């Protein structure tokens, strides 16, 4: 399994290698100028994995108030990814994907509580948001707690905000995994998608306006992700580090984009 923060996304244990996957992925995570100025690292984490005909992507954002929010985010993504990818727990014909997703969030919460005991700290010190998606050939299932969000490119090229951020009334309030863990919002999208993007809230002001995807941002990204290139992660990272993004947000930014390889369409 290859789950990384700020690096490349890859293929999972026993699954096809990245080059053999039916999905092209690009991922990047950069530290916000707010954190950089304070001399601290990113609290975002992401992980993705392709097993058989399933693609799993997880993104988490440790809360700013949480002392070990970055650790919580890593535990959440890696636990959820492991659960959703493991042969014994991943979704199958016998296990409903929505139920699998709920269990993955339960497991992430359990592991966060476990780490809190190891660190002898309050579980809220590890508070984090989490979003996870399982993409099947003909549908996808999304689980979400907090304000990381999901945008998809439908087969007919429409761009849809599938998992809008869960948030409180005020901009700096969001539900999270922690002591007062929220039940995940589960969304089933009953048709195939061409591309998927999961992102942390740093991207929101750029990618979504008036509750709708901002197409001048997403359309070039879909096109970019659909092309096989050697340096996709670096290119995406360059974008997230650019002035045009940094002018709009000082927060950590994480973006994972996956596009189904065109030759696999005929099989779907």
């Amino acid at each position, binding site marked *: 399994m290859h789950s990384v923060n700020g690096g490349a996304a890859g293929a999972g244990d026993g699954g096809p290698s990245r080059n053999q996957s039916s999905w092209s992925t690009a991922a990047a995570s950069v530290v916000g100028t707010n954190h950089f100025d304070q001399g601290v690292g990113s609290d975002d984490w992401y992980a993705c994995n392709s097993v058989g005909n399933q693609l799993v992507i997880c993104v988490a954002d440790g809360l700013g108030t949480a002392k070990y929010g970055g650790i919580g985010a890593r535990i959440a993504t890696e636990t959820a990814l492991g659960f959703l990818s493991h042969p014994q727990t991943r979704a199958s014909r016998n296990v409903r994907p929505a139920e699998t997703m709920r269990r993955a969030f339960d497991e992430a919460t359990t592991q966060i509580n476990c780490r809190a005991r190891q660190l002898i700290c309050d579980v809220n010190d590890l508070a984090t948001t989490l979003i996870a998606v399982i993409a099947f050939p003909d549908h996808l299932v999304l689980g979400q707690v907090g304000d990381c969000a999901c945008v998809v490119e439908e087969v007919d090229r429409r761009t849809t905000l599938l998992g809008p951020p869960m948030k409180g009334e005020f*901009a700096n309030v969001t539900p999270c995994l922690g002591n007062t863990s929220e039940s995940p919002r589960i969304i089933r999208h009953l048709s195939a998608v061409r591309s998927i993007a999961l992102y942390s809230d740093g991207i929101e002001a750029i990618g979504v306006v008036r509750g709708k995807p901002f197409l001048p*941002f997403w359309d070039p990204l879909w*096109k970019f992700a659909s092309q096989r290139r050697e340096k996709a992660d670096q290119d995406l990272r360059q974008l997230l580090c650019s002035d045009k993004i940094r002018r*709009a947000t000082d927060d950590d930014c994480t973006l994972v984009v996956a596009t189904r390889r065109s030759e696999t369409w005929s099989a779907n």
Partner: protein
Amino acid sequence: MESHTLLESVATPLEAGQNFEPRCPVAIVVDCSGSMSGGKIEELNRGLQQFSDEVRRDSLVALRCEPLLIQFGSRVSSNRDWKTADEFSPPKLAADGSTPLFEATIAALDAIEDRKRAYHAAALRYYRPWMLLISDGEPTDPGLEAEAIERCIDAERMSKCSNFSIGVDGADMDLLAKLSPARSPLRLQDMKFQELFRWLSSSLKSVAHSRIGQQAALPPVSGWAATP
């Protein structure tokens, strides 16, 4: 697509001339009654101008912070022209008239709720609004006292906004305490309006840069608040 092409081809709402940053509204309610004339109103004007300059300097605060000035004296300004800090330009205030403090407080709370409705309509996120109340005298509209106090208590209890009250000279601090029930009012030291507004701009920077789940830490008030 070459690597530089992604960077060039992607556009952001800001580039499209649209500001969808989350907003931080702050109603600045200032006493312009006759008792503020002379040095006090001059220092207040200087403080406001300095505040305007400082919030513009931080590019993110300039896009997120929305100050609204409500002055009360011979009348209460009914202005609800919220503007982001990059467009905020305070008028030169003149001291005149009575002290309709309660009417101004109610007007500010109404303006905040009105603004929140506009945010909802525009699908804009926002931070918890602020109301900063500055007064030096006894209110002259006692008929509205009960309503104003009730509205302030409700605003804090329901987390509608955060109220801050600043007393100047002989202000009735007990009364101001009723208008900011969650935090004690502070008395301005020696007409230090500029220091007060420097604190306000620093505080709003802290709020505007705060991350999800993060309660903004405010700077110390020792530079302008009198010790009790």
